[in-house]
């Protein structure tokens, strides 16, 4: 195994979309404790990548309207070069991660981040993030809100859509 390959570090930026409200209100509303409504993005090669209602977008790290992340997790290092990664992203953006494929519960930003993290490092993202939708849906309140929530597309402004996948 050669150690000459350039390695790029990969990080996970975690944002709490509720700005702390989930932590305080969730026991009342949902009956269980949720520490946050997590939105995640992968940061690598000096850019942040995330999946939203518009498709795969990128921006400078911490450059969306959400501001700086609440938590940063080091996912490790990857040998994958930026070129290959962009190829990979554009293929993803044409298939399973087009803008119109966004589903708040089943196929959201965290799904994307998880997949990309596994691609780049072989390791998934922390499970408390990916478990969030099922946690919410297992409460009666979540079930009630589901039709409304299903139609929400989270697309933090400030990013540029990769691949120009037009949903028109």
């Amino acid at each position, binding site marked *: 195994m050669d150690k000459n*390959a350039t390695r790029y570090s990969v990080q996970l930026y975690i944002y709490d979309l509720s700005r702390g409200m989930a932590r305080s209100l969730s026991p009342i509303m949902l009956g269980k404790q949720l520490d946050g409504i997590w939105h995640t993005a992968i940061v690598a090669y000096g850019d942040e990548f995330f999946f939203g209602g518009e498709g795969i977008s990128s921006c*400078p790290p911490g450059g969306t309207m959400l501001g700086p992340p609440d938590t940063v997790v080091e996912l490790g290092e990857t040998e994958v070069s930026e070129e*290959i990664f*962009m190829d990979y992203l554009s*293929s993803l953006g*044409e298939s399973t991660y087009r803008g119109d494929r966004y589903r708040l519960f089943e196929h959201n930003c965290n799904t994307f981040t998880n997949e990309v993290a596994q*691609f780049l490092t072989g390791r998934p993202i922390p499970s408390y993030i990916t478990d969030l939708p099922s946690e919410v849906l297992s409460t009666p309140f979540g079930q009630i809100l589901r*039709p409304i929530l299903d139609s929400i597309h989270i697309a933090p402004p400030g990013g*540029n859509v990769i691949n120009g996948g037009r949903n*028109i």
Partner: protein
Amino acid sequence: MTRKLTPNPSCSIGGVKMADQGVADPGNNNNNKPETSEGTIIKVTVKTPKDKEEIAIAEDASVTQFKEEISRRFKAKQDQLVLIFAGKILKDGDSLSQHGIKDGLTVHLVIKTAHNPSLCNYLHSNTTSGFGDLASLAGLGMGSANFMELQQQMQRQLMSNPEMLSQIMENPLVQNMMSNPDLMRQMIMANPQMQQLMERNPEISHMLNNPELMRQTMELARNPAMMQEMMRNQDRALSNLESIPGGYNALRRMYTDIQEPMFSAAREQFGSNPFSALGGSSESGAQPSRTENREPLPNPWGPPNSSNPSESGGSTTGSTSTTGGSNPSVSNPLGINPGSLGNGMFSSPGMQSLLQQISENPQLMQNMLSAPYMRSMMSSLAQNPELASQVLMNNPLFAGNPQLQEQFRAQLPIFLQQMQNPESMSVMTNPRAMQALMQIQQGLQTLQTEAPGLMPRYAPTGRYTLDNGFQLFCFFWPSLMTGGIPGIPTGGGMPVENPAPSPSSAATNTAQQQLMQQMLQMFAGGGAGGSTQTPEVRFQSQLDQLNAMGFINREANLQALIATGGDINAAIERLLGSQPS
């Protein structure tokens, strides 16, 4: 004789592995058996962004062998394959076990395509963006070095997004470029078809060589209001020309000699050069009239909506013009004659002739509808009802009739939905369907004159709705052209009514308006019964939402949804208003 105890599973003592091998054997049929025909076969999932496959390979195979198998399965060349496992790129010289690839694990695959550099550049240029619009334009496919290809790509982008066109026009860089007549001339002349045209018609090259004219054209292109004004003036001038004895013939000559070949060339290759129509058409000005114009000339000093002579000259008066208004022009690159289309009063002779033209020339409709420009315009209208209503307001037709405006505004979402319906699209492109519609028109007209009281009781049918859709569409087209989209003016608005000679025209027109209002109402009602789905199906998701909110009376929900055309909020208000609580 001692048997050598090797870790070779094929003769393992346990026997289980032998079975394994046996079972794995059928799977080896499509497997690239490693040269050393030993080693456990493991099943590795190979995952691309688009799909995944399970590949059986020997445990100690090399990456090269693995890639051979993969290239066969995924139908890609081996050197296009990039394998990634646990964040590491698998190099050809490595072996699978070196990387720890075992049975049941997933390896990622990226199949390299040619256009890599562009994306990286795009990414970085965007983060440092200095050029605004142009930067994103550049990133959208700058990979090809070929300028022509680039032009085509740009063209495609433009066509698919009409807003981009106006954005581009406003971009100072583009404006600079356009204000440089030499550059424009070069661009135009670079187009081979244009060159052909120029050879045939030396006047064109004179025109191109006249910098003053070019500059004026550039100014026009940039400033849609000015363009509209100029078109109007030219129209008026031309119509005056017609009245001079022999003038009509002169016009006709002008048209056939110069404009026709130019426009047909421009139209053919509009796909590759966005500026061709721009440069060419200012020369002989606006559209000439086509066939004999027997009607009295419209009054150029009359109310603005009736002073739209030549561009719609032929068709407003019911003549069957051969070209059917398909001349492209500066303002109207696809050559749709809005006057001929837009003469919306349904039972008017103009409409009849239009339908006739359509049925004679299905190509016209096809062109119109299939222009990607058109489709995206329709869909962007559908998504943006404010825009659509703005567009409507600008239509001079509505100027005097706020009631109509209101009605239209209410019907707008339904109408737009209808337009999106691919069935209505296909009906419009089908000449026989159009003919049938025309017959319906005539029938309706007769009916209206014979039994005016009958109309409101007309039961809505699917065809009827499509008919309405088509008429309303024609109605909307000129308003789209005049009001909504910058840079694409018609030749001076759309006439409300025909400059018909009959003295009863005033009365007829009021009747026509009434008829239209009724049709609209029916359209609203028919919109539910029309199209291919029943309202229950169409409003299924809305019904579900209402159910979830607690409105359990399905009938009432459905009624409310039908009445509001699927608008949940309005439906809820209706439901709440009707309930005593």
